[in-house]
């Protein structure tokens, strides 16, 4: 994540780097384990947690620099299970919290774990605006197509006909299409993976972490208790099909013509419109300055205009105008 480092001189005003008491020794994923997860046996969320551990281990992200943020829901118990700074916030607002944290502390690695209800329903507005503003963070939405923590109510991604405690005769509402929603919101990195393919999940997570700006992963994560079998159609072990997007290699071969160009929004939208189980991988990936960088530019310009004046001198100047 070297491209996330910012000019230390200009960021000094935003954050003073902590004194490092000696570089920590390399850690293993087992070191990141904290509380014993309280998810049901067989829950897809275990795979996401384990993949996150593998990712941190591979990258050796300084542990004190990782902040795991979540909202409310089964997925949002996540921070308790990670030995790193963490925040268990209120329902739907983890992305808003993470926005403030990421903008004010550009030295941190802010990773948000959310669910379909938390991200697409109660937190839908925040998702949309963090995406459009390209605020630097990685969001993993663990989509189980049901409200699990509250014990089986219809969620925004529950398919029509899904029988829940709030729709005993089957859901009558058209579900959200997360991929279309994320693309339309203007996210600069949008990917899709599933609990049933941990290796694929790791690859996608690594690319999301490397992305500068707002990166989001829609991750199917089965609720074995309240929506079992929901993702069988995407699971080869259950007779389904896990189709991975073939990305352009720009090798000039005729096959390459048919491959997906992740910078092509219309093509990404087409992939997003495929019926379930659809395809997996990186739908969309473009380089745009993160809001964090644009804000830093504002700061640099303003500091240059004041000649880098200290806060006291700056404020004195303003007050002189008000006399």
């Amino acid at each position, binding site marked *: 994540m070297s491209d996330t480092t910012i000019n230390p001189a200009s960021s*000094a*005003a*935003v*954050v*003073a*780097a*902590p*004194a490092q*008491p000696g570089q920590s020794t390399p850690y293993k994923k087992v*070191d990141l384990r904290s*509380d014993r997860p309280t998810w049901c046996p067989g829950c897809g969320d275990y795979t996401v947690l384990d993949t996150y551990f593998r990712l941190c281990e591979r990258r050796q992200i300084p*542990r*004190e*620099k990782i902040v795991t*943020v979540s909202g409310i829901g089964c997925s949002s118990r996540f*921070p*308790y299970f990670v*030995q*790193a*700074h*963490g*925040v*268990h*916030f*209120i329902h739907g*607002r983890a992305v*808003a*919290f*993470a*926005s*403030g*944290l*990421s*903008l*004010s*502390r550009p*030295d*941190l690695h802010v990773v948000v774990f959310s669910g379909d209800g938390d991200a697409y329903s109660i937190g839908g*507005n*925040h998702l*949309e*605006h963090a995406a459009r503003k390209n605020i630097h963070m990685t969001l993993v939405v663990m989509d189980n197509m049901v409200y699990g923590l509250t014990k089986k109510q219809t969620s925004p991604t529950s398919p029509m006909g899904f029988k829940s405690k709030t729709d005993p005769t089957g859901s009558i509402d058209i579900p959200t299409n997360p991929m279309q929603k994320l693309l339309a919101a203007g996210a600069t990195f949008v990917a899709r993976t599933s609990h049933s393919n941990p290796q694929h999940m790791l690859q996608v997570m690594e690319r999301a972490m490397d992305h500068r700006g707002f990166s989001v992963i829609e991750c199917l994560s089965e609720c074995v208790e309240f929506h079992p079998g929901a993702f069988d159609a995407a699971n080869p072990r259950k007779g389904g099909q896990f189709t991975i997007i073939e990305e352009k290699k720009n090798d000039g071969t005729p096959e390459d013509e048919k491959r997906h160009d992740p910078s092509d929004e219309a093509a990404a939208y087409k992939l997003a419109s495929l019926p379930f189980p659809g395809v997996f991988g990186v739908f969309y990936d473009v380089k745009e300055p993160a809001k964090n960088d644009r*804000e830093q530019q*504002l*700061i640099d310009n*303003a*500091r240059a*205009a*004041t000649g880098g*004046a200290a*806060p*006291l001198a*700056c*404020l*004195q100047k*303003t*007050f002189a*105008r*008000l*006399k």
Partner: protein
Amino acid sequence: MSNMSDSNGGSAATTNMVPIKDAVIRIAGNSQDGIQTVGELLARFSGRSAQEVMSYMTIPATISGGPSIYQVRIGSGEVLTVGDEVDVLVAFYQHSYDKHLGVLRKGGVLIYDTDHVEPNLDDKRFTYVGVPMTALTIEAIGGKGHDKGKNMFLLGLLARMFDLDTLKLEAMLKAWGAKREAGTMEATFNAFRAGYGFDIGRMGQNFRFIPNERRSGRPLVVMAGNQAMAYGLIAAGVRFGAAYPITPSSQIMEILRTELPKYGGIFLQAEDEIAAVCAAIGASYGGRVAVTSTSGPGLALKTEGIGWAVMAEIPLVVIDVQRGGPSTGLPTKMEQSDLNIAIFGGHGDCPRIVLAPTDVEDAFYSSIEAVDLARKYSCPVIILSDQAIGFRVEAFEEPELDKIVREMPIDFTPRGAEFKPYEDTPDGIPHHPAPGTPIANHNYPILTGLEHNEAGHPGEDPRFHTMMTAKRRRKLQKLAETLPTPKVLGPAHGDTLLVSWGSAYGPSREAAEKSTADGQPLSVLCIRYLNPLPPGLDEIFNRFKRILVVENNDSGLYGYGQLAALLRSRYCNPRIGSINKTDGLSFKVSEILEAVRAQTR
């Protein structure tokens, strides 16, 4: 204001200046007439001339157009209110005359635009100064036949009438117009000079302010309450804020958005009020107290976020520039009806600090204090300002910035293996390590809205909830012990004590002073810290037969305003009564005195 001569045309010579201590001028017109500009220039100019000043304005809630006023009170002594009556009324239109003549005191001066207003000259209570302002402005600016610029004509006219230093004033106009087009500035000066050159002749008198005996040699700064608050936050070291546009607090976010980058900070215009408070909490968690500013409807939306900050014990400053409520209510009018939501808003037992500044100067210092309190007690602090304080312009002594301006360092002190984020200490105050802080044994804290044990882990054991609820409450009890007991102004014992908070304090104090001067002793006390309350109030209350709480909110189902009800429940004192008002305007001194008379009869 009664210093202004009551005589009608006694001395008409313009060279003959009547000395005055204090003048209240109301300019009434339409919102697009640039009335606010004249008012603000007058206010700033008065401050620069070491006069005390306070202003008041109304703007229509519509987007453009509609009647608008700007009232400015300029005094050689301490100015506590903007004045019940006005000495000089400027009427641009007939509707301005019709609507505002009622506030012109007997013997006052009516300046009116003869092109638009036909006053009843038979009413001999007033001095009439009729000026063809529209025609003369068009003549002065020349050409296009529109009257934009008559505000500057008026400024010239007032400068002449009040013997203001035109050289200084023109220098100020130049600075004000520095970013405007040259042609506009030329027109501005032409209109200003035409106004200054207009001889009111025998129609009225000219006045001169007697020099102010200044308390210290420090110069005055002139600004609105919203400005003062924004600069106070910057002085306190705040480097992150988030808000959503809302009247009447948007000016705070506009200033912070413009100013913070100069200080290396960021201001986020959030997608909604909820995101704003949550982003501010996120930044506060990052290690530096952050701010979100709003008005009543926004505070309602932020309550869940504030509850999290209380539970997780994260510092936060929330500014509520109150307006009339509930719901959309009166967006451009003042009210003090958010006290309950500020103190009690949200679910659960949710203690937080609430303080209320009384004027513009206090708004500056309160925002600094709020930041310090949030840091020290690691909890949210709500500042209750209101539309009157937020919008009005006042002059106050330039703060000693070199002693005030501070940085807010992030606490990265490494923590030992024994570190517990929510340790049940005697004072209950946590010291959260900012993310980035190394923790021995990698026992990193998880901050959570779930009830938790000392290590921060959620648990079902009900003992934790009892312990932690008490811990969060105990912090504020510790704070209460350190708060100063408010001082009683006026007799320390007696018949009636006025108690007030926020912007109701100015008129309450003026009422008490007036009543005492008129031979009917009346004491007054201001409560700045509303939650927790300062110690010693009960003892003060016991020295008076009657305690009347003056506040701009409803007397409620049981006859008591929001603070009055709180004080009654806190002190079980049946002698606490209530003076309330809900017309969206600040109290007039006369209204308070009448209410006191009615209740003491």
